[in-house]
């Protein structure tokens, strides 16, 4: 578990360094994700080694969002002035984005015959 965590942190560190060093707008963890993915393509055995720990970790992904969510208590004044507008925008745009993505996926899947086997 410690070795897997070290790997994850190492790739994040690599990503952060690259993002800062080259002042990229892509955040460090995403570059780390891409870096780990490319490494897995070269070393497939690494994927098996990391599988169990990472799967267990990702099963509790929801927990990691709680601290940021509680931040709502620090923004109650913003929600008092803009709450209705923000709420409609959040719900409306989330529904529209899901519909747009599902629609585009199914349309192009049909056009290209990329069925699911």
């Amino acid at each position: 578990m410690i070795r897997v965590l070290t790997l994850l942190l190492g790739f994040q560190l690599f990503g952060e360094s690259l993002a800062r060093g080259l002042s990229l707008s892509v955040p460090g963890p995403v570059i780390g994700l891409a870096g780990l993915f490319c490494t897995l393509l070269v070393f497939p055995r690494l994927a098996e080694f990391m599988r169990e720990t990472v799967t267990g970790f990702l099963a509790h992904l929801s927990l990691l969002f709680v601290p940021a969510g509680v931040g709502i208590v620090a923004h109650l004044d913003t929600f008092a002035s803009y709450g209705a507008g923000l709420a409609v925008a959040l719900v409306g745009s989330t529904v529209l984005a899901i519909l747009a993505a599902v629609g585009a996926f199914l349309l192009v899947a049909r056009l290209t015959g990329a069925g699911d086997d």
Partner: protein
Amino acid sequence: MTEAVALWSYLAQEPLLWLTLTLAAYVIADRLAEALGRHPVANPVLISVILLAVILKVTATPYAIYFEGAQFVHFMLGPATVGLALPLYFNLARVRQSLLPMLAALLAGSLVAILSALGIAWALGVRGQALLSLAPKSATAPVALGVSEAIGGQPTLTAVLVILTGITGAIVATPMLNLLGVTDWRARGFAVGVAAHGIGTAHAFRVHETAGAFSGIGMGLNAVLTAVLAPLVVGLLF
């Protein structure tokens, strides 16, 4: 009595208490969601946030003090994002097979998320930093915070908007897509990941494994695309 007060004022300043309460709130919320048959509205993040917000309000604890303890959990978002490389890798064959549909869904979903959020909020009178903070809200938290800072939003407000977006997506996706009769788990999962990042992905994994894997991919790709698109869109509009 004074001893209890002294003990409380000591503990309330310590990271240990708020870290423990964050985990405890999540355990209770997860149990509750389980007891309610994983009904979409019984979202564990939503329940945890409500529980903790009430505790902070009742004890008059500032968010900054709470975050001193909760930051250890928050920090793990970074390595978790990196870890999303694994579901992506294990689904490589299916990803290759549906590459074009995924790219189309990614572009459509990402653009619609940014533009419709800004458009609706602007039409309803939201202005300034609050509006800009909304732009990256469909991307996963660590990404959205960085983007928000870069385009002149308030990162902490963006964090809240990101979480609320994720909860919204997790609540509406299943009933809405069932109603529309969408049976392709790849499309369903991918769309939820693009629109509602990690919270949507956590929900998708509970519904169907394929949906979860594709949701993780959608989330990862949209994190990258939002980091590129949101500054462009905001630069063009404002």
